[in-house]
């Protein structure tokens, strides 16, 4: 059973449908108790960091999220759900995040008028450190991205994959123990994205 955390940060339909498509049972929750009992957790989301952190706080689930991560439950952050795992984000004049991964989240900046922000579309991920959720996926495969801010991971050991945009090479996939996270949307990345979700659904949280 995949447990998707609903903290009112965007649309969960596509994540749910993608897991169902690969044969997983899915439940959606915003309750600390349900999160505490989950076998596998997906932490998706789009939108702004500050609002997302405030929602987590209002739902009183920050401790539950930190606890399942500490307890070794396989946990996957997607998009803003990845960014919130870092220490801070530049978004909304600085937002304190969950601090589970070392590093911060920064805004893309460019003087190239044809380089649009947000980055929207398919970009490739160069694998830096092999990881079970990338099993069977060719290096430099493309995934679907939509974001204006990017994770800057400060511990090289936590970098799974990197992507280049707006003159920056950023961490597009990160992992630490039972925790993995992608800046791209595997649920929107076709067959290759579904393969990531399938790998996650079969992963025991051990690297």
């Amino acid at each position: 059973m995949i447990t998707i955390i609903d903290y009112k940060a965007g649309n969960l339909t596509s994540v749910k449908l993608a897991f169902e498509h690969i044969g997983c049972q899915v439940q959606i929750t915003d309750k600390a108790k349900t999160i505490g009992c989950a076998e596998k957790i997906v932490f998706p989301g789009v939108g702004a960091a500050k609002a997302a952190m405030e929602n987590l706080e209002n739902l009183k689930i920050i401790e539950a999220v930190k606890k399942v991560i500490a307890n070794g439950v396989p946990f996957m952050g997607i998009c803003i759900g990845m960014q919130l795992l870092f220490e801070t984000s530049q978004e909304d004049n600085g937002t304190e995040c969950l601090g589970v991964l070392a590093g911060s989240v920064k805004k893309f900046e460019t003087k190239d008028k044809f380089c649009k922000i947000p980055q929207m579309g398919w970009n490739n991920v160069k694998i830096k450190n092999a990881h079970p959720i990338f099993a069977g996926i060719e290096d430099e495969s493309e995934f679907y991205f939509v974001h204006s801010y990017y994770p800057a991971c400060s511990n090289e050991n936590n970098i799974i994959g990197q992507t280049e945009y707006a003159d920056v090479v950023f961490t597009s996939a990160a992992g630490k123990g039972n925790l993995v996270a992608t800046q791209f949307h595997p649920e929107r990345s076709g067959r290759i994205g579904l393969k990531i979700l399938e790998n996650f659904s079969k992963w025991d949280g051990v690297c």
Partner: protein
Amino acid sequence: MLTKRIIPCLDVRNRKVTKGVRFQNNIELGDPVEMAVAYSDGGCDELVFYDITASAEERGIDIDMVAEVAKAVHIPFAVGGGIKNLEDMKQVLLAGAEKVSVNSLAVRNPDIIAEGAKLFGSQCIVLGVDPVKVEKSEKFPSGYEVTIQGFRTRMGMDALEWIKKAEGLGAGEVVVNSVDADGTQEGFEIKLTRMIAENVGIPVVASGGGGTCQHLIDVFNEGKADAAIIASMIHMGKFTIKQIKDELVAASVPIRQKW
């Protein structure tokens, strides 16, 4: 490197995909869900569905169809045509669409862009614009006028000014559908596309006129489009997405090649 997106457009009427030239002489092409799966499996990067008669006939959106598509394809897709209010946007997005495209509605009620962006995020809100070429003047400094309702109504608004206003309100992407080029397969309107790409900070999707691979190469290289919508060139079996992408790769256009 971020790749250029190839987006098949499916005009849907009564659950059938149709295609016409300048919104006339429509012929039925097939089932929208089956076609979406075939194009997704064939390597397209995104899909867009328009209910071409929805605005004119004031009909509602086929939410069941949106939900069926969302179950069947796992790449982004947008739905446009017939969205009348925030509730429609919400229903389309909750059914599994990545984006909603607003055109006539936004012209009549620009605040819908800001309200939609606030509730669902800018990345969900696509502005569709149908500009027609006009004499450059004080009223139309860009030389293009906004039309709505399938090009039926001229709005007396400058196209570039409108797009910039919509960007400011929170539109996350703009689809520029050239009235003059639509359905002709004689090439995208490169100057129009480039002018908009130079003047806005959001991704620009070129639409209307794509008939050959060279047209796509030109609209990406010269027109600076981030994505291009195609219809006739693939719907009639003239090209497969793979053939198009191979040509673009040979011309050094950044393209997603593995799917």
